């Protein structure tokens, strides 16, 4: 079980706020990386388990054994929501796998390569595309009033206003302080393609 002071470097439970101090995430989000850290399991094994009903049940049972630790680290940890979150993580993970497999399939790979090229050029001319994507990128890493203000300023500039605002409001980022894109912290532990 990682110590709270190490969570910042792993992105598992905390993140450095704008003041430089660690902001503790209030709710435990059972991503494959976090689950693998708490249960000291191989991340690929966690991913496999997350894809099956039985596997998720087992992860849930095992995580509940750490309930006290989790409640200490995550003040809003609610055991009754854990199963729902694990199911959602498994479902989202499967969706992402299907999406990446689809665009990398032999019959579509070339088509998507051209699609990405087209989007790059298109986004330069139409900031709405880049802004929406960049908002998705930084939403996980920049929380709080400054980001909201920045979003509002973008809105004044007429750039993807509603989309960006909806994206931000549609996550728990501003309310829970949840942040930290795990991918930036733990690329080494993530299998290629996920």
């Amino acid at each position, binding site marked *: 079980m990682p110590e709270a002071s190490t969570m910042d470097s792993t992105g598992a439970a905390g993140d450095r706020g704008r003041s430089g101090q660690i902001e503790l995430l209030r709710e435990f989000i059972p991503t494959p990386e976090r689950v693998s850290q708490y249960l000291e399991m191989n991340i690929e094994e966690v991913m496999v388990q997350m894809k099956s009903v039985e596997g998720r049940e087992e992860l849930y049972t095992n995580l509940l054994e750490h309930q006290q630790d989790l409640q200490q680290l995550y003040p809003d940890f609610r055991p009754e929501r854990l199963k729902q979150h694990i199911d959602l993580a498994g479902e*989202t993970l499967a969706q992402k796998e299907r999406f990446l497999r689809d665009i990398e399939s032999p019959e579509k790979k070339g088509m998507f390569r051209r699609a990405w090229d087209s989007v790059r050029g298109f986004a330069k001319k139409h900031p709405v595309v880049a802004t929406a994507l960049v908002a998705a990128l*930084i939403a996980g890493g920049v929380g709080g009033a400054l980001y909201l203000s920045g979003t509002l300023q973008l809105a004044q500039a007429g750039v993807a206003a509603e989309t960006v605002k909806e994206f931000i409001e549609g996550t728990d*980022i501003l309310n829970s302080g949840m942040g930290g894109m795990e*991918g930036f912290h733990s690329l080494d532990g993530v299998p290629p393609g996920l």
Partner: protein
Amino acid sequence: VLQCVIQSFMMTTLLLTATEKPLWDKLPAKLREGWEVVEERGAFRDSPERRTMRLQLVHLRDPKLKIFLEKARAATSVDALATLVLSMDLREVMDADLAELFFALGPALLAKVMSSLLQSARTDSDIEGIAALTVIRNALYSSTTASP
């Protein structure tokens, strides 16, 4: 659907939803000339929980994006953050990371972006860009409905 997607990327077909079709019909006839519209039937009910989880599962590879995030975190003013966001150049982002970003955004919000673009399209290259986005969105929709 695959055939439509392939046609779409041959720049002859647009996969538009029933909501988007009227926006398309409002465009000048000359701009619509040569394009075939096929209905996109994909649907996905997004939610705050789903968006949060997608964000949590993003894994980016490009160090430049990491630097970008660090700059965003270090921004001390609204102006600095807004300037940073608007200065982001997608031409430097690799394919795999673009795919991650689009997955994080999700098909529902991408549809909102596309509606906006359809209303402001003025040139053939605008339509070609929208066609590329319809291809990406179709793949996102498919990923939410296909069997595991």
